[in-house]
């Protein structure tokens, strides 16, 4: 018997699959043949943007969103004396919050486009100016910048509080937007400019007909993300005596001393708003990809 088994030549595993099977038996840690996708770490300030393909994220979005809505509704229904009153009071800050957010994002896109074009320009002076602006803004806390710009603007020209706040927010976010747009412009292959140049297009024609349309497509998702960040950071304008959601909440606290309850409602309102926005941005991105 023993002889027989010895005489039998060992059968060598032939296929890759057989080899794998053996390997998996011997080695406790199974060997993966599938190539790993390179991990991309994307850090954003805004909430994560769920897309259709991203099941996990969509599920967590739903849980958070409906959770927040249910909690808010329950609080208002079961303790209307406290929460319904808080809700009714703070919700009046939404117009101000949105006004600040929307106008400031428009301003930031405008400033950002100028800075982005400037910092990708070959003109050294323009380049330096844009670089310094970006470094300045990135190195100072947003809250400090807001207060400084607000008082600086106030002492120079007499403008309404909300206009000053929008300008200040635009300048602060313009630097980040500039970096986004610069990266977008630089992601357009050099051949595009060369082809346009070779066809006889002027620099401005090349920029507006070839570079800009392609850049917009690249940066739109990032701008959507900034929009969500802006909605949250617009709460900082509450220190500038603007009655946004947070400011309304603080006013309510100073009247009733219901700090915890009020802040809970304020947090829930912001959460619901940003989650809705993130879903909208997700839809917009999907449509953009579908249109080629």
């Amino acid at each position, binding site marked *: 018997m023993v002889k027989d088994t010895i005489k039998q030549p060992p059968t060598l595993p032939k296929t890759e699959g057989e080899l794998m099977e053996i390997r998996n038996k011997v080695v406790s840690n199974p060997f993966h043949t599938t190539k790993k996708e390179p991990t991309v770490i994307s850090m954003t300030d805004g909430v994560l943007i769920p897309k259709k393909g991203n099941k996990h994220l969509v599920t967590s979005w739903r849980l958070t969103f409906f959770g927040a809505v249910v909690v808010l509704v329950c609080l208002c229904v079961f303790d209307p004396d406290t929460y319904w009153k808080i809700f009714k009071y703070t919700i009046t800050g939404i117009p101000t919050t949105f006004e600040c957010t929307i106008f400031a994002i428009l301003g930031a896109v405008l400033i950002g486009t100028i800075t982005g074009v400037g910092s990708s320009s070959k003109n050294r002076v323009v380049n330096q100016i844009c670089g310094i602006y970006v470094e300045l803004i990135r190195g100072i806390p947003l809250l400090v910048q807001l207060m400084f710009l607000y008082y600086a603007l106030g002492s120079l020209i007499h403008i309404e509080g909300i206009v000053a706040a929008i300008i200040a927010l635009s300048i602060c976010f313009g630097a980040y937007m500039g970096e986004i747009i610069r990266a977008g412009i630089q992601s357009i292959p050099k051949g595009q400019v060369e*082809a346009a140049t*070779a066809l*006889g297009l*002027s620099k401005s024609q090349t920029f507006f007909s070839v570079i800009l349309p*392609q850049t917009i497509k690249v940066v739109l998702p990032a701008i959507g993300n900034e929009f969500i960040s802006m909605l949250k950071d617009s709460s900082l304008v509450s220190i500038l005596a603007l009655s946004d959601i947070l400011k309304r909440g603080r006013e309510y606290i100073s009247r009733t001393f219901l700090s915890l309850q009020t802040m809970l409602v304020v947090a829930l309102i912001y959460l619901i708003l940003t989650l809705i926005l993130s879903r909208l941005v997700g839809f917009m991105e999907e449509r953009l990809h579908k249109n*080629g």
Partner: protein
Amino acid sequence: MAKIEIRNVSKDFENNNGTILHAVKNVSLTVNDGEVVVIIGPSGSGKSTLLRTVNGLETAQSGSILIDGIDIMDKDTDIRQVREEVGMVFQSFNLFPHLSVLDNITLAPMKVRKMSRNEAEDKAMDLLAMVGLADKAHQKPTQLSGGQQQRVAIVRALAMEPKAMLFDEPTSALDPEMIKEVLDVMLKLAKSGMTMLLVTHEMGFARAAADKVVFMADGEVVESGTPEEMFANPKTQRAKDFLNHIL
């Protein structure tokens, strides 16, 4: 049609570490009216750089380049007007991905030549029909194959009614079976009497269409002559080695 005269052109590049690379050294080359001149040579020999100096995509340090007698290196010359007259086709097609095939072609005639949209589109459709792509007019470039994209790129250049055409390795990025469809279009163009200056590795095309073949190595013109002379008995050892390798 135009005559391209390159006289004693030199172009240096500065590397990141400060060393100077002499890409093109004192090159002279003439392309007569309606002639087809093919530049061949090993990679890094300065062929593409030379070609790109002709429409000012690269600025030469010295020498002069005359197109129809106009020196493009003269400070008073409007280089954009020269570029309108000289079409260029790139290795990587460089079509505008955000525009349809038709808009790719009509962009420059409308913006630069101030043609009306109707006029530009009629012309574009005629040219597309010539290269057999009339049915693709409303697709995006990414939906086309490489060969189709390159044919659109040729049409895009032709839509400006150039007097001369530059081709920078137009078939190098293509699959073998697509090369032919592009070469056929180029051959048609050459036969129509277009002045053409090409950088290519397609020796078959050079044989069939070229009036002159120029062999470049290390930034210099080593040898030039008719395709028959060049391919049958190259005079220099450098050219012999290269042709042995490639043929």
